[in-house]
């Protein structure tokens, strides 16, 4: 009778103007059987972390197009760490240059950065593989 769903929070921190991309990812995840929570544009790190905890998500996906990723993402992962949310899988996408992506993964708790042009199937597969045990 146990039915585990993978719950993913797709968040838009900062001042991005549109969410077309993240919603396409959201639909792909939904079509793969996941529960996708979306809270709209212009979210702050604090509200993103709070929502992640209340919704008890397995994955936090951060979508940033504005270029502010090096300010926003470390702040978010720092807040998550402070709350003891270490089992949360944090991934990112949007407009993030490769060398920044490397730093985010190496130093700031991001598991993987999906650059522009990533196929949604790759994101789905990655999440399913990482969260297979949960």
């Amino acid at each position, binding site marked *: 009778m146990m039915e585990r*769903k993978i719950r993913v929070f797709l968040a838009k921190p900062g001042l991005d103007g549109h969410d077309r991309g993240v919603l396409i990812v959201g639909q792909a995840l*939904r*079509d793969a059987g996941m*529960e996708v*929570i979306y809270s*709209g544009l212009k*979210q702050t790190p*604090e509200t993103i972390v709070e*929502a992640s*905890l209340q919704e008890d998500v397995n994955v936090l996906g951060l979508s940033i197009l504005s270029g502010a990723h090096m300010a926003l993402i470390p702040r978010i992962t720092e807040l998550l760490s402070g709350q003891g949310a270490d089992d949360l899988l944090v991934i990112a996408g949007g407009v993030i240059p490769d060398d920044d992506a490397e730093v985010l993964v190496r130093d700031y708790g991001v598991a993987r950065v999906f650059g522009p042009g990533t196929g949604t199937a790759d994101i789905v597969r990655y999440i399913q593989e990482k969260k297979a045990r949960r």
Partner: protein
Amino acid sequence: MSESTVELYRRLLDGDRRAAARLITMVENADPAAREVLKSLHRHSGNAHIVGLTGSPGSGKSTIACRLAQHYRGRDASVGIICVDPTSPFTGGALLGDRVRMQELSADPDVFIRSMGSRGALGGLSVATNDVINVLDAFGKDYIIVETVGAGQVEIEVVKFSHTCVVVTMPGGGDEIQAIKAGILEIADIFVVNKADREGAMRTVADLEMMIETGPGRDEREWKTPVLTTVALEEGGMAELASVADDHWRFLRETGRLAEKTISRMKAEVVEILNLRVASAAVDLLESEGGRALLNRLADREIDPHSAAEEVLEELLGRDGGKDRPGINP
């Protein structure tokens, strides 16, 4: 309870919202460990005013939930909001976007918002939603707003687990008013015509008022279902909605209806749980070796489905038909 679930139980009662969130996940996943915690939490619940919000998609339920919560926060009360959205029956997934309409609440630590997918299973949704309500109640929430799409039978069931049921519509829905008739008229305590700045609002109000007048007879001691107008996005009419919801709560308590309602809610809850558990036990039985033999007899038309069901029931209740079981005396 295992050590970790005792820990979860204690942390929840201490006000740890991560414990609440974790327990809700276990409830949604039908984790048997959750059941033990729920049993212990029961005596800590029963304090919250549970407001159910239903209505067709796009009518503004989430915005209304947000504004109502803001009113309650203005009284320094704490609020829980449960948003139920449909799960795709084909993929099993869901896009849960009600938080988009609740931006003003996202920075408030005393508002707990949980998005739930309906997850397909008919009885399962009612049980899970009710369990989540009980978790938030025991967690100390003064108000719990449960928001669902009133499109299907299941969502209507969920609203039965609330004290005050608010049905939301919009102007211009002629067909919608007809569709509303099926079951919702009986359960609505408050009708709201939202987006009332649109054309046709007053006609919609009049149509609803007529439906209520010509609907199931009510005497003066009963609650008279009002039809309110709101423009939730701009706060219009929201103070009145909060006030009328309060009136309903007061009505329930002063007339003793709350006690009656609690009993019928509890009964409905137990029946839903039994539906799930008995069906599950029956399916297990049918999938056993003996069950397969029964199914073969059915396929060969040696026995009919009703008789087969009776055999399963006898097996589940024990060969004596359960007559000698202690505890329940029919």
